[in-house]
């Protein structure tokens, strides 16, 4: 037997209920373009991360790839083979499967790169904003200098330096890490500036002062008290930066300093296809190119919408 209290206090709405009730969902359902973009991004992510199960063949298994299948046009064209819907590349790999696998590599590099950039930027921004003084001016001067140069130039330079340091390692093992480091070190500035700005405001508020009076150590105050209150705007930067990171990765791979042809990303596939453009094998470059363009456009549209939806002035 249990004792029933006279009146149960109304439980706080669950997370799901709050999502259903939010302005953000309403603004999402109002914008058709955003919904289409979200569906495209979702499909591409699922296709990429489940590629081993979705793709009809494993394009990197030498036992199933035959050089005699090289440069077959898409299935609907003369000479096409229904086994290869989008045709094959110069090594006889099924292009549809290669795109799914390449998309996965592109997204992994993009996500890890953005995560690294955000981690560096948030840490430095918190330190600069909370500690102030010399630390602040040192970090912000570095950020200013870096901001004068285009990110792609910095990424190329870091790529060269890191590869110079790893000179004796096997390129196939290090390529992915080199790219992630290059992207992470090229894109941290925006996070640092945003976080520093809001940290400067939060630092003087009562709750931070109280935490300081209680005698909590500074790192704990920064992580537990300041960080949750300044992290909001980072979400938008993350989305827009993901598109930029994917473009940067594709550009570096296209330029031949990114992922090698043995583990191609979308950029590598485009770079391979570019060599066959003049022999009329248009499909090798077109399909990866279209995939990349659609991915970037959809992520950008989502980012634009998120920026407007989270901006209280526009509500």
């Amino acid at each position, binding site marked *: 037997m249990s004792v029933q209290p006279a009146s149960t206090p109304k439980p706080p709405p669950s997370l799901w209920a709050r999502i259903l009730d939010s302005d953000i969902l309403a603004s999402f359902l109002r914008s058709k373009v955003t919904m289409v973009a979200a569906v495209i991004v979702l499909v591409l992510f699922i296709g990429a991360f489940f590629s081993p199960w979705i793709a009809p063949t494993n394009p990197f298994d030498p036992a199933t790839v035959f050089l005699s299948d090289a440069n077959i046009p898409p299935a609907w064209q003369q000479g096409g083979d229904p086994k290869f819907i989008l045709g094959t590349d110069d090594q006889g790999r099924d292009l549809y499967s290669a795109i799914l696998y390449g998309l996965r590599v592109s997204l992994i590099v993009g996500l890890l790169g953005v995560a690294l950039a955000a981690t560096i930027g948030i840490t430095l921004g918190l330190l600069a904003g909370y500690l102030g003084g010399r630390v602040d001016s040192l970090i912000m001067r570095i950020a200013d*200098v870096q901001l*004068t*140069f*285009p990110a*792609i*130039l910095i990424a*190329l*330079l870091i*790529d*060269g*330096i890191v*590869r*110079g*340091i790893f*000179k004796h390692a096997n390129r196939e093992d290090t390529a992915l890490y080199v790219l992630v480091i290059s992207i992470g070190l090229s894109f941290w500035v925006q996070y640092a500036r945003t976080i520093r700005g809001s940290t400067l405001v939060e630092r003087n508020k009562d709750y931070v002062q109280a935490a300081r009076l209680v005698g909590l150590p500074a790192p704990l105050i920064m992580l537990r008290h300041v960080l949750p209150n300044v992290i909001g705007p980072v979400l938008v930067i993350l989305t827009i930066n993901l*598109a930029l990171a994917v*473009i940067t990765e*594709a*550009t570096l791979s*296209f*330029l*031949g*300093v990114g992922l090698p042809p043995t583990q191609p990303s979308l950029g590598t596939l*485009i770079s391979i296809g*570019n060599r066959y*453009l*003049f022999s*009329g094998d*248009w499909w090798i*470059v077109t399909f990866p*190119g279209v995939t*990349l*363009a659609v991915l*970037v*456009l959809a992520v*950008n549209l989502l980012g634009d919408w998120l920026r407007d939806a989270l901006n209280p002035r526009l509500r």
Partner: protein
Amino acid sequence: MLAFVLRRLFQSLIVMLAVALIAFTMFRFVGDPVNQMVGVDTPQEQVAQLRQTLGLDEPVIVQFARYIYNAARLEFGVSYQFRLPVISLLGERAPATLELAFMSALFSLLVGIPMGVYTALRRDSWLAKIFQTVSLVGISLPTFLIGILLIYLFSVTLGWLPSFGRGEVVKLGSWWTTGFLTGSGWKALILPSITLGLFQMTLIMRLVRAEMLEVLRTDYIKFARARGLRTRAIHFGHALKNTLVPVITIAGLQLGSIIAFAIITETVFQWPGMGLLFLKAVQQVDIPIMAAYLMLISFLFVSINLIVDLLYALVDPRLRATIGAH
């Protein structure tokens, strides 16, 4: 005013020193210059001797000072892969990159400004909507994809324009080569300039549009209308003139990034410029070229920023007042 100029000069100097430090660190520690020059079977004494003649056994700070001294005289060492002085390699390729950058900047201004004005004045017309969509695509598509697309259309399918190289060039003076004096040189310039300028063009178009919309709402435009001036005079004599100051600033600042982005365009079109040289250096980890390119580009960026800042202080009396107040 003088204090402001001096402070800005000092800041620029600090930035250049920081870049030089990075370049020097790369040069000295990433690729050991001696290891690059000697073979596997060179005797140990000879290696030590070489180290001494190159001054690599001196304190690091002395080496850094010498590196800066040499860089100021444009001596950046010898390329590992070409075995030639870096500065002559860069100098030989500079005209190609500068001509390409100039044409792209021209293209982005001459097309971007009219498009921006049009989309601001006729906001709801279908052409303006097409321009807006094109600008969104132009910002989303990576540069190399635009290049490939243009090559496929105009070189492979239609066969109108060349897809690589500079065409025929004419030598002017002792080292400058120009593509402006031959028909094939002009033809070769078209596709790379559009590829390189497209991003800046969309940027300028969006900027002009936003500025125009802003200016058209101001009181002096309303007053000009009330005075019964013709629409054309209002739009172009009053509105456009006032939007051009920020546009010129941005265009100036973008010149540096045009030269940096030329790396990608030059690769797509096999354009024999500095960017292609830099990319080959990155691929081969040819540190002297990378370091020299970094120094040159930084110098360019820092100079442009400095000039724009000083011009601003000169042109805008409000800014001068706040500088004086500091």
